């Protein structure tokens, strides 16, 4: 039996998760100049909230939606109460995000324990095409991500709030002079970043068991996707995520996990040497 269809499906599923994380990072970095290292923790928060709510019996999809909304509110509050105070020096924002990681890790250990938790199997469908099987939960991750990406793209392009976000990213002083409440727009960007992370986390939980440190890997992969695609570009984040997900799935299937980690790091180094602005020309031109 060929492993290829399975590997491709896993690759797309990983690509979906990495794209969502990278996109959240891009939004926050584009508007706030902050490298938000706590994005991985927000992802885990999304996973835990989804799992807990789904166990309450409200069903997986409502639980996911509630987790995303809660994360957005938390993101908004974090920016308004903490990050807004250190706008003058981006390094302090980075330090705050590191502090948040530590606080979250402790909360996760206290709240959900060190052992893995899983959702059971809310989407227990398997498609059989020829000799290849496709698990429904992986397809669901890919499908939801595509819908979310399309929604975000439409939001940024079509709505007034989306335009305000892009204007603030491009020229915040000018945006302020045009009457855009740039501070509130920044809080909103952070809320979107948190919501995207929580969405990735909620989806992650239908494929993988969740423990308090499970967010570290998607965080790093999100960053690598961001750099490979070209920092500051939403399209680049998605393309970088797609590329990285495929490399990882094929590498793990046909080679080894350890070697794949090294390969990904080597790719990152190579991209920085050869194309520090990212590998894709189109992406470079599609700023926020």
């Amino acid at each position, binding site marked *: 039996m060929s492993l290829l269809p399975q590997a491709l499906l896993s690759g797309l599923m990983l690509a979906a998760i990495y794209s969502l994380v990278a996109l959240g990072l891009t939004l926050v970095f584009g508007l706030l100049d902050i490298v938000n290292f706590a994005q991985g923790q927000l992802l885990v928060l999304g996973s835990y909230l989804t799992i807990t709510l789904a166990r309450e019996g409200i069903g997986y999809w409502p639980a996911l939606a509630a987790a995303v909304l809660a994360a957005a509110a938390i993101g908004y509050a974090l920016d308004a109460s903490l990050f807004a105070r250190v706008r003058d020096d981006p390094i302090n924002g980075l330090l705050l995000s590191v502090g948040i990681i530590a606080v979250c890790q402790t909360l996760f250990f206290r709240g959900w324990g060190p052992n893995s938790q899983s959702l059971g199997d809310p989407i227990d469908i398997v498609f059989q095409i020829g000799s290849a099987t496709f698990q429904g939960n992986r397809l669901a991750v890919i499908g939801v991500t595509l819908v979310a990406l399309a929604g975000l793209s439409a939001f940024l392009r079509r709505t007034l709030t989306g335009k305000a976000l892009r204007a603030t990213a491009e020229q915040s002083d000018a945006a302020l002079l045009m009457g855009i409440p740039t501070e509130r727009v920044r809080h909103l960007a952070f809320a979107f970043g948190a919501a995207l992370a929580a969405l990735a986390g909620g989806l992650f939980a239908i494929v993988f068991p969740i423990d308090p440190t499970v967010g570290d890997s998607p965080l790093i992969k999100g960053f690598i996707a961001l750099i490979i695609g070209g920092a500051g570009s939403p399209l680049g984040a998605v393309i970088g995520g797609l590329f990285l997900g495929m490399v990882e799935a094929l590498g793990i299937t046909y080679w080894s996990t350890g070697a794949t980690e090294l390969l990904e790091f080597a790719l990152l180094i190579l991209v920085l040497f050869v194309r*520090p602005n990212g590998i894709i020309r189109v992406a470079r031109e599609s700023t926020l």
Partner: protein
Amino acid sequence: VIATLRRRGAVLGWLAFLAWMLLLSASGDVTLINVAVLTAIWTTWGTSFNLIWGYAGQFSMAQVGFGALSAYVAAVLVAEQDWNAWAAAGAGIMAAVLASVIVGAASLRLTGFYFAIMTLAFSLLLLRFLGTLDLAGKTTGMSSSFDFGTLSIGSSTWDLGSRSGGFLWFMVVVAAVALLFVQRLGRTGVGRALRALRDDEVLAAAIGAHPLTYRLTAFALSAVLAGVGGICYASHLRYITPSFFALNLIIVMIVLVVVGGRGYVFGPFLGAAFYVTVTEWIRIGDELQAGLFGVVLIGVVLLAPRGILGTLDVKLPRPRASG
């Protein structure tokens, strides 16, 4: 009085450092000697971070990774090849320097954003790689008790591994060398160029300080100190697993340099003394510790982002301009 204290800042730092070590070791208490040992190790390790971030202005999250790399290379060489501990440690440190040159050359040309990400990616991917490596015992880890032997001068001997004090003073000497190195470096042309680049890159570059060259040098030097710190830490623990060097430890590194005061020679020592006292001596909130330090970090960043020494430096009156 304050002006004198200020001028004698370095002397005060050295006195505090020695007094801390002497008093704790004189107690003869196992816990307190442990506190002193860990303070010394974290001073060395934290100094490596202080060098690259406090002096060169580049926020590196690779220092823990460099330490892990050195410790693992040394441990594997000792276990598999029967290398002498000193030679194995040297090889481990070389590995860290090599890694720093590769990571630094790729990312130091770009903005600090790339450097921070690259260094974190290095640390975490290295751990995941080590976790899959048979040679290093995968996730269960491997022994790292290095035998550094005994030093004899005339009739007196110094067992560098003795837990009753020999190891402590070995670690203290290592930390003192690290502090002295950074203190001296700060006064040389390299140190001045690094600070100039940190404060105003364009201006510094215009007067001839090539940013990449100086920063890469600083990063490689910081990798040496990080490698030494990691090997000391592994030697103290005697057994290492990848999870010992996880994100938590990176956070510890950041917390202690931020709290002590970045860019000050004795900042890492002060931060280390604070951190080790809380975790190993008075042991506040065992399970909540990580979160506690997260709160401390957030609080310090919001209220006194320059840390203890930086805040004192700004708040205390300055001596009249004379030197």
